[in-house]
């Protein structure tokens, strides 16, 4: 055990001195997570939708609609510019200066058959859809009040009674509303998602610095020297695995803390996150150790591991939701990445250690199987 600690201490010291190791372990995943989170937007929309509104009516109903838009603008969800000429509004949408224009026709409040025109830019389908929905919701609200009043009034048609009823109906709140519960339903927010995805993706590169150095030691002759020393033969391999685990765990720990502090990621219950991270480190170490045991040169090990890390990362959904491809859906569960991100998703809604146990168990399973294969193969390798 003493020899194991001395050797692992040596390896860790070497790695910390090696700038590229620190880059891979911490700097690069953090920077990429930051870039991705910035590019892909922190919240629902990457930027406010740009709308224009042309009010040809100038009545109270039109004003109410413009008011709805203004309130959204205050919350930075949309920007609204007022345009006098409907042709100009259409031109702005056509040129892509704005995403969509609303044209409120004259008589919107009085003429029952008027139509709010929504002119969307074809390349901004989201913004156009949202615009159409905003208009529809407004119209629905108005209509339902009128319909309610007319239906309640019944025959004969008495405009004054209808007006009085409409006033009452308007105060009647709609019984159904929509609440967005994404945050409580285990859906990781963008920042946490990219922080976690990059952390686990680069973990598979980070842990290489332990196990794979076994190959370097063999090539450099230091392995022979170590084995000729009064050090149990198992100690060298154990130390290498321990280095991988320690280095991987430190990398994840630093990334978790850094992304929480500087990127606003929210990983979830600390204990559960620690369990997931630990299991991921073990799984990554096992997978990497198998590759190291198969490779003959350090260079070979490096490039094989890179291929595998890319492949597993892709299948595990690090870069994009792989489950959209039905044929590959099941494969995501064949990767530690998939389990890790899935487990973190469980925590997003406030889950605790219990919810992530399946993910932890699955990753430990990876670690056990790959670790066993690697140890059997590498035990031979640590003998010259």
């Amino acid at each position, binding site marked *: 055990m003493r*020899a194991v600690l*001395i*050797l692992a201490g*040596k390896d860790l*010291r*070497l790695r910390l*001195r*090696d700038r590229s190791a620190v880059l891979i372990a911490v700097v690069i995943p953090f920077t990429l997570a930051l870039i991705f989170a910035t590019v892909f937007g922190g919240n629902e929309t990457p930027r406010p939708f740009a709308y224009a509104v042309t009010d040809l009516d100038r009545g109270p109903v039109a004003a109410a609609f413009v008011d709805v838009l203004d309130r959204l603008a205050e919350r930075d969800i949309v920007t609204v510019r007022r345009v006098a000429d409907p042709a100009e509004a259409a031109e702005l949408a056509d040129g892509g200066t704005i995403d969509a224009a609303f044209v409120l026709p004259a008589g919107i409040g009085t003429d029952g058959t008027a139509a709010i025109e929504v002119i969307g830019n074809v390349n901004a389908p989201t913004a156009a859809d949202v615009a159409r929905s905003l208009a529809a919701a407004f119209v629905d609200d108005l209509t339902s009040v009128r319909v309610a009043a007319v239906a309640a009034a019944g025959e004969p048609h008495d405009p004054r009674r209808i007006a009085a009823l409409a006033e009452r109906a308007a105060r009647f709140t709609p019984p159904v509303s929509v609440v967005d519960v994404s945050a409580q339903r285990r859906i990781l927010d963008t920042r946490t998602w990219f922080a976690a995805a990059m952390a686990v993706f680069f973990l598979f590169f980070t842990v290489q610095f332990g196990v794979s150095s076994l190959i370097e030691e063999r090539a*450099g*002759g*230091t392995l*022979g*020297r*170590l*084995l*000729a*020393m*009064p*050090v*149990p*033969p198992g100690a060298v391999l154990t130390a290498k695995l321990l280095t991988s685990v320690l280095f991987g765990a430190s990398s994840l720990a630093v990334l978790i803390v850094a992304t929480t502090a500087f990127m606003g990621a929210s990983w979830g219950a600390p204990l559960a996150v620690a369990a997931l991270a630990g299991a991921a480190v073990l799984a990554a170490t096992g997978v990497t150790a198998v590759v190291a045991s198969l490779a003959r040169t350090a260079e070979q090990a490096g490039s094989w591991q890179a291929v595998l890390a890319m492949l597993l990362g892709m299948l595990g959904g690090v870069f994009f939701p792989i489950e959209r491809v039905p044929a590959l859906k099941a494969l995501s569960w064949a990767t530690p990445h998939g389990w890790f991100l899935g487990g973190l998703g469980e925590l997003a809604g406030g889950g605790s250690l219990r919810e992530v146990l399946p993910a932890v168990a699955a990753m430990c399973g990876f670690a056990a199987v790959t670790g066993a294969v690697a140890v059997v193969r590498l035990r031979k390798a640590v*003998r*010259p």
Partner: protein
Amino acid sequence: MTLRQLAAPPTSTGTGAVLSCRGLRKSYDGRLAVDGVSFDIGKGETYGLLGPNGAGKTTVISMVVGILPPDAGDIRVAGLPMTLRALAAKSRIGYVPQEIAVYPDLTGRENLRLFARLYGLRAAAARARAEEVLEVVGLSGRAGDRAGTYSGGMQRRLNIGAGLLHRPDLLILDEPTVGVDPQSRNAILDDVTALSGRGVAVLYTTHYMEEAHRLCDRVGIIDAGRLVAQGTQRELTALVGQCDRVRLGATGDLASAGEALERLGSVRGIAVGADGIELLDTDARTALPAILAAVSGAGATVRSVTLEEPDLEAVFLHLTGRSLRD
């Protein structure tokens, strides 16, 4: 260069020997690399394993230090059997591998401290001992620099230093001077002499005749995995008998010149090289005219002739019919 006329040590008998090897055999993929090698090294004795590249020296050493299990044979270090897990036996050996087995990204000092700890020294003792060894191998001035920045000779010295940390009873050096400038080589050879003077047994492999000549009390000559002869240098040169060694610098058809020479009755061994021919002759002084005639008769031109007392090189030529160098 003075021949060290040390009295031959008492023939080691298993029990008293620091190292005793019996019938070592090892083959790689069915090809025998070491075949029936037996030798002993006593306390304070320097034993040289002399042989050309590929003779099997490193294979023998690897088995002795317990990192390569022999196919057959028995190795005892101070009476303890050597195996992969023989930690007690291993802690008596200081091993200096053929390649420079240090961590280039650690400083010289850090390398030595690390290895000292692995040899079982406590932290404080390891620190102190690392400084001593740095002094011994003359690296104190550069101890704080990364080993990767050292010159070839300095790296070799650090490589040796790492084998001295735990004051071993037996120091095993596998071609420690390969690729080293003459000055560093001298320093290394002096270090080894000094150590053996302090009672450390040394097993030293080399393909340089001069090194074996300068350092070793006894020499084992190894070729193609077999120990073809061993003994003190005097015993070995006696094997050659009264032969003289003749070195001919020559150009032209050296192959047929060699064949012509073999037909001369007094020639005992012959090695044809790229730029000349070496041969052993029972009486070179009288045979020289015949030798020169044979060479020019075969279409080669002799440019120089050297006559030498028989040495280990001559012994090797005598025993194997080949030169050590190629």
